């Protein structure tokens, strides 16, 4: 496997060289002590989810506790965050989606804090696991589906019946629409987890590469600084991706919500 080949090249020359696998950072292990991970084990993933919730609570509670007319820095951030999501819900899903704004705000704040805290060196990113993002995506999918039927009754099925298309084409389109509807939670969750996992793995690959080439070849002094520069560049990209993926997850939730509220094409 790739891990062994990465490890072996470094290990063959210097047995005490840095040997780690780029995917090692995603291993879920108990936070306290060793042992197997059971259903109720407090893992490193749980720990960082708790940190995420604490950080989000801290921002919003501290930010709004002052309630000054001239906002402090933290109050500005909290207000910016609130206003940003509220405008997104209103623009994308429409005014009648505003009752669902708290749910969407919760999703956004949770994901963005999980992504950003995961970028701290040594931290674990809960959102890099499909197990976590799949729960978020399935919650959105089930909420939106149930709500679509509750609000529109059987009229919700109009989402699959493209009335603007020529009649012979409609059954075919309906089939495609049904498939694409059920693929939504899959792509919704894999997009977030995949982006997070890919970025962190790339950083780790460069991080493993830098000491490895320094130890093994004469070119190391030239290549290692480049590799470290690459880590910095990829890290900067990851900060951007962490925000964009939280944004994309929320905005897609808004799009799905709009489909549930107004299912007619």
């Amino acid at each position, binding site marked *: 496997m790739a891990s062994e080949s990465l490890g072996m090249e470094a290990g063959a020359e210097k047995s005490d060289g840095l040997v780690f696998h780029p*995917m090692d950072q995603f291993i879920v292990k108990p936070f306290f002590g060793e042992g197997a991970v059971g259903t109720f084990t407090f893992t490193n993933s749980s720990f960082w989810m708790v940190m995420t919730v604490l950080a989000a609570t801290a921002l919003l509670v501290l930010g709004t506790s002052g309630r000054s007319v001239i906002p402090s820095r933290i109050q500005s951030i909290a207000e910016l965050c609130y206003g940003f999501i509220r405008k997104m819900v209103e623009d994308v899903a429409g005014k009648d989606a505003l009752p669902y704004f708290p749910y969407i705000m919760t999703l956004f704040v949770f994901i963005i804090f999980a992504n950003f805290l995961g970028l701290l060196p040594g931290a674990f990113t809960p959102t890099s696991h499909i197990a976590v993002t799949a729960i978020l995506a399935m919650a959105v999918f089930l909420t939106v589906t149930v709500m679509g039927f509750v609000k529109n009754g059987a009229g919700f099925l109009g989402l699959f019946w493209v009335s603007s298309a020529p009649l012979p084409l409609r059954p075919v389109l309906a089939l495609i629409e049904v498939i694409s509807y059920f693929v939504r939670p899959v*792509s919704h969750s894999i*997009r977030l987890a*995949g982006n997070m996992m890919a970025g962190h793995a790339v950083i780790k690959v460069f991080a493993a590469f830098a000491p490895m080439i320094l130890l093994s070849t004469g070119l190391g002094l030239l290549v290692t600084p480049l590799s470290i520069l690459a880590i910095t560049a990829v890290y900067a990209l990851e900060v951007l991706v962490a925000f964009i993926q939280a944004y994309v997850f929320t905005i897609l939730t808004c799009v799905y919500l709009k489909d549930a509220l107004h299912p007619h094409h």
Partner: protein
Amino acid sequence: MEGDIVQMGAYIGAGLACMGMGGAAVGVGNVAGNYLAGALRNPSAAAGQTATLFIGIAFAEALGIFSFLVALLLMFAV
């Protein structure tokens, strides 16, 4: 040596799966490029379309992520 040919196939497959990332790159570039072209023609309408831009990028990118996932599965799960 029977097991090795399976592993070789998995590695080749993982490499082939990476070509999907190139497709995603073309797709994302296409979305962003067309957005920019449209935005330069009518800058006043550009701000309202950033959400659409990001949704388009997300859809194009997701397929690249799927190919990355296939590569990962071939490397570590097969």
